């Protein structure tokens, strides 16, 4: 029988004013196992980890409970002994690799620091061990990389260095706080694989903190689902994914977008995670739970242990188990939606409202005293696409591939270098500012970060009115106010919201305001730049539902820029896959996602963690996205491609058609190979 590395019981962490952030949490991790803490933002996951290492920020105190790490009670240690634990017995890696390395120390020095502290290695011995560690985490040419500074490494490499630093102390427990959230899917797949491999090799335990069900499905042995400071359900991965018990967990699963749910609205969880300490009586999920009854709001549910060692904190499963059987019906599947453009999936190119051909956006690189142009960053390099009325085109790609630049260039926020953008038959490039203004209303943008996209100094009404005033929509302020009411109704906000300031709203509500702002000028095309990537899963579902219903009501077209393939499957009619400024594959969502042709698309699809565990054969993608200032010769993807041949390095492949809608730019399908 394996013994437990970490035993946490009744851990309580609270603010000085008494509001509990972490409320009575107990769990244990066996040696060599991975325990995943799953939950939305603000539910206390990170605070749990910080409590364990006694690294709580000012104003937050540990108010009870015990934590035994490898037989040592962490909360009884003196601060000096605690320092040996941090980085020694228990190491931690953080979400943002760019911020967790010291920019003025070389990578080697930073690893050596840990080695000196916890292993007593110095000088040459520390050097050798550092190289070993960097090798171990899969950094090529480790001896040279040792001498480099963090800014010379890519995001994925930095996270590898962080892992190497964590491993330097030979920890028995590694705490990983959202280790891959800031990384692209292909890099995420590499880092998760690395974590699994190191765990297998060293037998350490892993406390994985994440909000991503896919990551949990790939990594975890045991899962604890957190909600508002409490663990509401704990089970093995198999148990949890086979049959989630707590209504919250069930809803989390149901809120995931995907191809299966295409024709139905997602089961969004209404409302938001309650603020700290606002609910003291009863179950904290009651206000958002559709299976709550009187008891739920009166009495706090206890921890119920069920067969198979799993546990749940819900009244549904307490003593009156027999009675709860009939309650435990799966929520009825939502009724299918009538689809707007779905019936006629053969696209009529004549109805395209946006036609882009050979669009290029190059940024000059200037150097020297005279600021001469020495090169071009080809952020967008010859992109052509069409969007029909009422359809959604998803633009998929990793960060740095130029998708956001493309979106801004379409709106003429960045002047394109070459090519044409035709909206509704009218050319937009090269228009004077005044002529452009008359066309602005038809095309609007929804941004990624709902906190940065609203001016916090303006009231909602002023935010919404700004566009109408600039484009002279609505004859007088009375007409505009009436329009505001309609808009707020459309996006599902109360009419009184317009007198409030953005900081009074949650992230999801702010994104609704941002959508309403774009809709205020009655656009026909919305460019949505990662509109849900800053939101929690349950809120993401609300926004996706909203976007879909708006499309149905207003016959809107969307250009959906995203890296989240599950969202693409759910919302898109057509998909363009972008790599280094060019589109490498395009087709209907069905074609591209079910039978991907381009090796990059296939790698991208296989890198996405799947919750059903039906592992597509994993295609490992080496290295990182090359710099668009200096793209590789020939096919841009050739250096990372397993199928690359001579011709790939010689020239850029032409487009090959697989069907009326499906084209790929790859030599594998070139006429000479067929």
């Amino acid at each position: 029988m394996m013994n437990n590395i970490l035993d946490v019981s009744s851990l309580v962490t609270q603010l000085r004013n008494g509001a509990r952030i972490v409320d009575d949490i107990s769990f244990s991790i066996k040696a060599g196992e991975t325990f995943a803490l799953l939950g939305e933002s603000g539910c206390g996951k990170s605070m749990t980890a910080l409590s364990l290492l006694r690294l709580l920020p000012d104003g937050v105190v540990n108010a009870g409970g015990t934590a035994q790490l490898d037989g040592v009670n962490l909360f009884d240690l003196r601060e000096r002994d605690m320092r040996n634990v941090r980085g020694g017995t228990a190491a931690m890696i953080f979400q943002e690799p760019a911020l967790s390395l010291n920019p003025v120390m070389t990578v080697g020095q930073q690893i050596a620091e840990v080695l000196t502290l916890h292993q007593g290695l110095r000088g040459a011995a520390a050097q050798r061990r550092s190289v070993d560690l960097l090798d171990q985490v899969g950094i090529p040419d480790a001896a040279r990389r040792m001498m480099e500074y963090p800014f010379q490494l890519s995001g994925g490499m930095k996270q590898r260095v962080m892992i190497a630093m964590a491993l330097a102390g030979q920890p028995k427990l590694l705490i990983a706080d959202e280790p891959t959230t800031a990384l692209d899917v292909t890099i995420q797949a590499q880092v998760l694989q690395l974590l699994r491999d190191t765990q297998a090799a060293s037998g350490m335990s892993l406390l994985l903190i994440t909000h991503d069900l896919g990551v949990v499905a790939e990594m975890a042995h045991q899962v604890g689902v957190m909600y508002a400071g409490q663990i509401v359900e704990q089970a093995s991965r198999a148990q949890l994914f086979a049959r989630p018990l707590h209504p919250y967990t069930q809803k989390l699963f149901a809120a995931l977008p995907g191809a299966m749910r295409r024709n139905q609205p997602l089961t969004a969880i209404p409302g938001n995670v309650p603020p700290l300490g606002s609910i003291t009586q009863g179950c904290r999920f009651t206000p958002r739970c559709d299976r709550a009854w009187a008891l739920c709001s009166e009495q706090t549910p206890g921890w119920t242990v069920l067969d198979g060692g799993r546990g749940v904190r819900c009244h549904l499963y307490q003593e009156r188990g027999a009675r709860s059987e009939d309650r435990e019906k799966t929520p009825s599947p939502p009724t299918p939606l009538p689809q707007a453009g779905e019936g006629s999936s053969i696209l009529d190119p004549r109805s395209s409202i946006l036609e882009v051909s050979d669009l290029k956006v190059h940024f000059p690189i200037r150097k020297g005293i005279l600021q001469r142009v020495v090169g071009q960053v080809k952020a967008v390099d010859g992109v052509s696409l069409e969007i029909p009325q009422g359809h959604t085109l998803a633009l998929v790609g990793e960060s740095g591939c130029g998708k956001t630049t493309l979106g801004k260039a379409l709106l003429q926020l960045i002047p394109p270098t070459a090519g044409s953008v035709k909206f509704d038959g009218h050319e937009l490039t090269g228009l004077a500012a005044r002529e452009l203004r008359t066309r602005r209303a038809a095309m609007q943008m929804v941004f990624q970060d709902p906190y940065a996209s609203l001016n916090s100094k303006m009231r909602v009404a002023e935010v919404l009115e700004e566009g109408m005033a600039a484009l002279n929509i609505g004859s007088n302020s009375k007409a505009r106010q009436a329009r505001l009411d309609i808009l707020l109704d459309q996006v599902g906000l109360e009419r009184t919201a317009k007198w409030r300031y953005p900081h009074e709203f949650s992230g999801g509500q702010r994104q609704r305001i941002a959508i309403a702002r774009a809709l205020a000028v009655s656009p026909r095309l919305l460019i949505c730049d990662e509109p849900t990537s800053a939101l929690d899963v349950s809120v993401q579902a609300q926004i996706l539902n909203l976007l879909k219903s708006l499309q149905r009501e207003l016959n809107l077209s969307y250009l959906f820029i995203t890296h989240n393939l599950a969202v693409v499957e759910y919302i898109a009619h057509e998909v363009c896959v972008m790599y280094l400024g060019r589109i490498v594959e395009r087709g209907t969502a069905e074609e591209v996602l079910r039978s991907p042709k381009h090796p990059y698309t296939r790698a991208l699809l296989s890198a996405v963690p799947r919750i059903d565990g039906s592992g597509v054969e994993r295609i490992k993608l080496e290295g990182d996205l090359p710099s668009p200032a200096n793209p590789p010769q020939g096919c841009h993807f050739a250096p990372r491609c397993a199928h690359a041949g001579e011709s790939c390095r010689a020239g850029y492949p032409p487009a090959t058609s697989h069907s009326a809608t499906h084209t790929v730019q790859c030599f594998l399908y070139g006429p000479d190979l067929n």
Partner: protein
Amino acid sequence: MSFMPVILWSDALVFLLLAAGISGAWYVRRREHLLLPWRRVAQSATAMVSLAVLSLFFAVGLLDTLHYRVALPEKNGSASVYSPEVLSVFDKLVTPLRTQTEKTYSAPLAVTLHAKESISDAQGRVLRDYPRLRYGGAHLADVSQRDGDVLWRGFKGAMGGLVVGVLIAGITSLLRMQNLDGNNPPQSPLVRGNARTPPLTRGGWEGLAHLKKYIDSNYALIIAFIIIAALIGATASLASVYHVLGTDKVGQDVLYLSLKSIRTGLIIGTVTTLVTLPLALLLGIAAGYLRGWVDDVIQYVYTVLSSIPSVLLIAAAVLMMQVTIDTHPEWFDTAASRADLRLVFLCLILGMTSWTGLCRLLRGETLKLREQEYILAAQAFGVSTLGILARHIVPNVMHIILIALVMDFSALVLAEAVLSYVGVGVDPSMISFGTMINAARLEMGREPMVWWALAAAFGFMLALVLAANLFADAVRDAFDPRLNRSEGTA
């Protein structure tokens, strides 16, 4: 009419600033999110105490800004003839201090002059002795009674001040408590006060307990207020018969000079911002938002300007102006208006040389802001550049402007002292801390030393600048988004 109001240039500018300040406060009052940082300022005891001290200085400065000329008894036909001397309301209030001048130096609270003189007594003999002052302690029959009299008068004045202070503090506490309870707006989510009945309408004991709670929460402010009241009481009581801080070379009361200097310091500290602010704001955000050649030109200008030694620039400008003023005596009907014009020009010149720092700050902030998505959204609507600058950029850099202004204030007050000391500051006839120090520096070498003029200038300036600095610190903390992150997104 027995007097004619006179509005000097600096007075007009002060009134302009005052109007701007009041309307700004009115605007902020009605906007909860703008009010929030000020609430944090109000919660800081240091800030409120330093604000109390500052407002005392401001009150003196404002009273000293209301100028007038009195009518002389003789008439020129039907038109009144006014005295060439411009007085202020403050001068009127402290008339004895202004008019009771001695012959020359006398130490604080002295009854005799500082140096021995030859005096002829009743018998016609000539003695070398310290002559009695004309006003200071003139009511005393004998010099030896002074100590007891000073103590008694000081004590009496302090007690009087204490009683008045306690009374005012008590009444304002009660009134404010009433107001707070009455005005609790239930619809505002940010004010978390439960609706309570006004304490005066409830039973006596409960009301008293409530009052105690209020006093506890404003302990520091009330104590400071009472101490200041006692201090003023004591000074006022003593000043009526003594020269509390002594007299200077020509026998003027040093306390009067120090109090008059406050206005000069305040005007330098505030009116200068009228010049710096538009320049820094306009150029800073234009450079940051428009980039390109506009940015290049503006950066070039402020880099060059900040490379020139500012004392040199100021000295050159002041001397040029002095020559202009001297060659055109017909522009000025009184000596005060001539000195005043020089003060205003000094503010202008100081402003022209000190806008670069704030401008650089604002450019940096705007560079960051212009990448924000709400700016992009506004651009996508085709909002004009001016519209974006006015609606999105300016409100979002306001906190930096505010912090910079309160921080610069104390630096400017000190700069005036240094410049006047060097001789390129205010008009020599204008009373200011700098001219006081300049006059006193020569006397430091005298035996026995004349220290009080310098000490008075030092003490008053320290109090003013320290209060301003402490207040500025509190304002910066309250407005710094990094220190208050948790509240803003609640």
